[in-house]
Each structure stands twice: as structure tokens, then as C-alpha cells.
């Protein structure tokens, strides 16, 4: 693929500009005060300020939102990866009754629109007293993060030759020893990618997180939309909050860049 097409090159270059411009604009607005944003239109901020970032770090509504989000996202990631590891292992190693059907059923849960589950989730978590707790959101997000984890992990684990299993057996290792000390370390990058995707999909989900929380466990995504609908329109702070939510992804992506595509394709590439 060293044969380059001039058209494709131009398209790539143009698309990069197209990608960067909105991000650049987010950054400039985050560096300006509200009066400044409303007053003048300028491409490069003439009076840059860090006040918006300071506001987020000092205002409890903002940083508690971050902490709330973080607590259900971590909980969800933990649950998903733990239950998905054994399942992905058996899917990649064994044929059993209903395996294909089960695998498909998981996929259909990953693809299901959260809106469909809105009504029963609200009733379900209210009736068992979990409404407005991080656990409710974490469990609700399992609907799509568990299938996602199983599919991604299965994709990676299928690439690990079964000879390794046989060798461990011949060496007299117990299954438990083999699984935790040999198999999981081999798949550590797969687990890393899975954690990353669980984290991400739970972090970005808005509809369920908003419906299942009230004032106690209000997540950051909801705090952000509330600021938008308030008449004040605090653009600068909103942009700064945007920067804060974008950064973790950009910092982590460098480490998973080799496996990113495989993760997005549910382990199928």
C-alpha cells in the first residue's frame, strides 16, 4: 500500500483540518471569559484566562459530578471485566450447547438502544431501592458493557493458540493456576483494551445515567446539559468542562492505538 493516490492525500489533509477546527475552537473558548466571548469574535484569544478551569475545580457541583461519574464508571468496568473474562475464555475455547445463540444474544444487547430500556429500568431500580445510586447506573450500563467486553475479549483470546492450554495441562498446572498466572498475563493488552472500552462507553452514556439519578448521584454529563439549558449560558465554563472530559481519552489513546480498531470492531478485525 505504498502506491499513493493524490486525491486520497488531499482528502486526508482536508479531513484533518476539519477535525481540528472544532477542537481548536473549544480550547479558545475555554480560555476566555464570558463577557469576552459574548463581546468580540476573535480567532486567537487576546486576553487568555484560566478562570474557567479554576471555576470547575473549585465549584462542588462540577467536581462532584466528575466524582459521581467516576464511581459508577469504575464500578461498571470492574463488574463487566470480571464476569466477561471467564465467558470470553469458554467462548474462545469450547463448543457448547447454544454457544452461537448466546453469543448473538449478547450482541443484540450491545446494539439495543438505551431508550428501549428506559421504562423498565426506572421501575426496576426504583422498586429495589437503588434509584439515585451509582450502583443503579453501573448495573444498567452492564446491559451493553458486558456484551462488549465478552465480544472484544473473545476476539483477542481466539488469537491465542490452544497449544498453550495443552502445555499447561501437561506441565501439571491446575486450571486455576493456568488461567490466572499464564492465560490472563498473555492477554493483558486485551484486558487493557476492554477496560478502556467499558470505561469509555459508560463514561459517554447520557440517557440512562440521567434517568436513573436524581440530585445525589448526578453525573458530569448531566451537569453539563443542565448548564446548557440554564439561561445563563456559561459558555466559557462549559468549554473548560469539555476540555476536562476530552483529555483522559486523548492521554490514554496513545497507549492503546494499536488495538483501538479491534476494540471498536468488537474484536472482529
Amino acid at each position, binding site marked *: 500500500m505504498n502506491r499513493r493516490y493524490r486525491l486520497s492525500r488531499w482528502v486526508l489533509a482536508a479531513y484533518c483540518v476539519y477535525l481540528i477546527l472544532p477542537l481548536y475552537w473549544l480550547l479558545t473558548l475555554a480560555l476566555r471569559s464570558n463577557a469576552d466571548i459574548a463581546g468580540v469574535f476573535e480567532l486567537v484569544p487576546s486576553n487568555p484566562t484560566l478562570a474557567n478551569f479554576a471555576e470547575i475545580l473549585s465549584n462542588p457541583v462540577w467536581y462532584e459530578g466528575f466524582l459521581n461519574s467516576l464511581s459508577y464508571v469504575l464500578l461498571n468496568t470492574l463488574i463487566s471485566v470480571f464476569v466477561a473474562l471467564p465467558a470470553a475464555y469458554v467462548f474462545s475455547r469450547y463448543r457448547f*450447547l*447454544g454457544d*452461537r*445463540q448466546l453469543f448473538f444474544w449478547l450482541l443484540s444487547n450491545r446494539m439495543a438502544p438505551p431508550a428501549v430500556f428506559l421504562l423498565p429500568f426506572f*421501575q*426496576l431500580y*426504583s422498586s429495589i431501592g437503588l434509584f439515585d445510586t451509582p450502583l443503579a447506573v453501573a448495573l444498567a450500563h452492564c446491559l451493553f458493557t458486558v456484551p462488549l467486553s465478552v465480544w472484544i475479549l473473545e476476539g483477542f483470546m481466539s488469537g491465542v493458540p490452544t497449544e498453550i492450554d495443552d502445555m499447561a495441562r501437561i506441565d501439571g498446572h491446575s486450571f486455576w493456576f493456568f488461567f490466572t498466572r499464564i492465560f490472563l498475563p498473555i492477554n493483558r493488552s486485551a484486558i487493557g483494551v476492554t477496560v478502556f472500552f467499558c470505561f469509555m462507553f459508560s463514561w459517554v452514556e447520557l440517557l440512562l445515567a440521567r434517568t436513573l439519578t436524581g440530585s445525589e448521584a448526578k453525573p458530569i454529563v448531566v451537569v453539563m446539559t443542565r448548564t446548557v439549558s440554564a439561561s445563563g449560558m456559561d459558555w466559557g465554563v462549559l468549554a473548560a468542562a469539555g476540555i476536562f472530559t476530552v483529555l483522559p481519552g486523548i492521554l490514554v489513546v496513545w497507549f492503546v492505538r494499536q488495538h483501538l480498531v479491534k476494540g471498536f470492531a468488537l474484536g472482529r478485525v
Partner: protein
Amino acid sequence: MTWMAWTLPTAIFFAAIALALLVLIALELKRPTLTSRGWLPMATTRGDRFFISLLGAAFIHLLWLGLTPWNAFYASGLASVWLVVIMAKG
């Protein structure tokens, strides 16, 4: 359980599906299915045909309810025929 708002017809519906799954499992244990090629454009197993016929039956109902003003029982009749045909010949 009150929040689940069970009714007799839906309970029968889900019980029937659960029963069908149990029967399929029993059949599978006794006489494992081979993928076979019928009217459908790909090779299917018994489980695949069951899923296709159920999904098809659901869409028959939707089309019927959306396009005709008549009672849905006719659609159910049509869907049963479809179900049998796919299970047997698909």
C-alpha cells in the same frame, strides 16, 4: 413484582417461548442438529430457524397492524403458517 405488571396472555406467551427453548435443548441433546440448506438463502440449524421464524412472525404482526384495519388474529394465523413452514422447510 407488581411493577412488572404481568397479565395472563403475556405470561402464556413467555411460558410458551421458554417451553420451546427447553424442547429445543432436549432435542439438541438427543439428536444434535446439522446445518442444512432449505428455502432460506443460507444454511441454518434448528435454533436459527426458530429465531428466524419468531422474528418473521413479529414482523408479520407489525405489518398487519400498520397496514390493515383488521383484527390481529388473522396475522397470528398467518404467522403460525410462516412459523411451521420455516421450521420444516427453511
